[in-house]
């Protein structure tokens, strides 16, 4: 894959398909990711080698949380804010951006490219400190190509994991796919309209 932007690392999980990623800050990496690299709805992958086969867990950022341990510590400090880096470095480091990643499927990799995508839940788990990378756009389309058709077999899983955010994520994905493959737009439209109708009308 041409774009190997590392955006963070896995630090925990809520379930087998719902992981928490801590976004690298400038203190952790020299080239820390831009906010556009870990935006809402961004496709990510985690490279793993399982049974000697290089594969990628493919997921999507469905949620973001910012964490500031200083929040609420309004008492007086011994140091000025700009000096706190020197005297209390851990406080500063603990300011984090955490993203929720829903795992959508997995794929075998060959020479770093997706060769066989599978939208089922991977049987294996990610581990703490696994590096999360941004999935390039061409690979996003490739991940959706099954039997020469665009598939979103993970649809219901996103709805389950992302809850109220699912419609926006799926719409974003569908828009992106329609743009890349206009010949599939009609079928994807049916899915998108159905999604909008169900999520928006249910709330009425």
């Amino acid at each position, binding site marked *: 894959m041409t774009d190997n932007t590392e955006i963070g690392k896995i630090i925990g999980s809520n379930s087998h398909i719902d992981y928490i990623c801590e976004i690298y800050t400038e203190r952790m990496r020299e080239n820390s990711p831009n906010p556009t690299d870990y935006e809402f709805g961004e496709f990510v992958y985690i490279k793993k080698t399982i049974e000697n086969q290089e594969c990628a867990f493919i997921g999507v950022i469905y949620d973001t949380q910012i964490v500031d341990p200083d929040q609420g510590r309004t008492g007086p400090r011994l140091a000025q804010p700009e000096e706190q880096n020197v005297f209390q470095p851990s406080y500063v480091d603990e300011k984090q951006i955490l993203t929720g990643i829903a795992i959508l499927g997995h794929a075998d990799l060959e020479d770093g490219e997706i060769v066989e995508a599978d939208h089922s839940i991977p049987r294996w788990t990610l581990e703490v400190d696994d590096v999360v990378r941004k999935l390039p756009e061409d690979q996003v389309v490739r991940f959706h190509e099954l039997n020469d058709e665009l598939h979103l077999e993970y*649809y219901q899983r996103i709805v389950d994991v992302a809850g109220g955010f699912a419609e926006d994520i799926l719409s974003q994905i569908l828009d992106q796919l329609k743009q890349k493959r206009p010949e599939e737009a009609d079928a994807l439209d*049916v899915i998108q*309209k159905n999604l909008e109708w169900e999520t928006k009308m249910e709330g009425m």
Partner: protein
Amino acid sequence: MTVGIVCEPGEQANEFVFVTPDDTELKTGEFIFYESSVTVENDDGDLVEEKKKIFARVTSREQKRGFPDNFMADPGVSPESVARRLGISTEGVDLYKITATIIGYFDEKLGDFTNPRIVPQPGTTIELASDTDLEEYLTDVDPEEEGSARIGELLHRPPGKTQIDLPIDNFASTHLSVLASTGSGKSYTSSVLIEEMMQPDSRASILIADPHGEYGSLQEMETDDRFQGDDGYSPEVKKIKPEDIHIRISELTVSDLFSLLDDPSDAQEQVLAEAWDELQSGSDGNSEYISTNDLQQKCQEVGKEKGLESSARALDWRIEKALGGDLFHHSKHLSLPELLQPGRCTVLQLDTLDLRDQQMLLSVLFRKINHARVEHVKGRDSELDFPVFTLLEEGHRFAPADGDARSLGILGTILSEGRKFGIGVGIISQRPSKIDDDVLSQCKTQIIMQIQNPLDQDAVKKGVEDVGEDLLDELPGLTPGQAIIAGDSVNTPFLAQIRERYTSHEAESLPATELWTDAWNGQDTEPSGLTEADEEEGVEDRDALI
């Protein structure tokens, strides 16, 4: 073949519901069965438990699971394609809940179905009834034996897989009705039945009242090899043209005469009745040959005697008007031996007779037939020592619901008592609602084809007792040649496809556009008085300055 599994009892006591996947395509009217133990009496008279196939008929079909409507939002995108993209299996998606009504197990001793009065347990497997079982159980006749009429095959089964035979003895004695709207195949179906009845193994004696001249092609049977018997039998088809149809005046009854005269007064009726009595009693000579003149003269005599000359005079022209036509004759008539013989099918072509004459003719003929058959059964000399079958096209003309037909009375008598005397009647009609209720309900075998008129559908529902609502709901949707067969000749009603005729069919609609075009082409279409422009009068002045 297992087609489903019972999931629950149905709403009615005899119903149950089972679930089946899409690919079984069980349609309404299809036959299925499950196996269950029932208590039956064995040959020794002991009650024993025996495993029997309990047959049932599919009465409704409801989709239980299928693609949501939302998947069909774009007519250009198939729901399967949407489902596939979402990782939903597109194979075996549809599930149907089928309601079936239990018919029962076939009781060999009774030769009919017996209902065990219990519905199957949930979980019981349901199988499709085999073609051979249906052939054996639906009608009570052995196709290989004499007296079977091959009517066609089961509608839901692939062509050529089933053969349905009706017992001729049954429908020919307990009467038959063929009800369908125009163009659905009434006369076609009737012709199929006639073909079967004229086969060497039946050699029926049939009389057809044919107001439209649709049965002439049956004559092809005479030369068709399929109808020839090894013993030299060959069916005879006798067409009687309207001009050869006569009623001998002496065969009329006094009430026939009253009905023929336009509203006679009491005095006229008295004179006529007395004159008729005297003529019939034969005191003046031969009572068999009475002419219009004889009747008029006798009326004059009676009028004089009774002091009712004016009534007799008034009767004079009325009699002339009523009996003066070609139909009534002092000596000519249709004799029964001429009309009815075993192996002979007589077609009375009534196309040019008016309705009242048709009714009168049938009335006289039926009375003669009935009398002859009663005489025979009572052991007296008779012209008809064999049963007869009569087929009435446009049956509502002869037995109208409003009762206004001379033929209705005798037809009613024959339908209610004919069975004992070997007279079978087949009523064919496109307007069941216009047929007398009693007449319709006396026809114990029914062949019902497409009927769209709601009034006619209601009439069929009322007049035909044992056909379920589910089958009658099919009536508007049947296509020509498809029929519901019900009644005494079958063990349970079923949908059938009528077989192809051996003889050609004559009741096709006229090719109007072709006939118009031909007629137009035949006309002198050259307009008269046309002149070439250069030959017109005054042409030489055309270019002159005004």
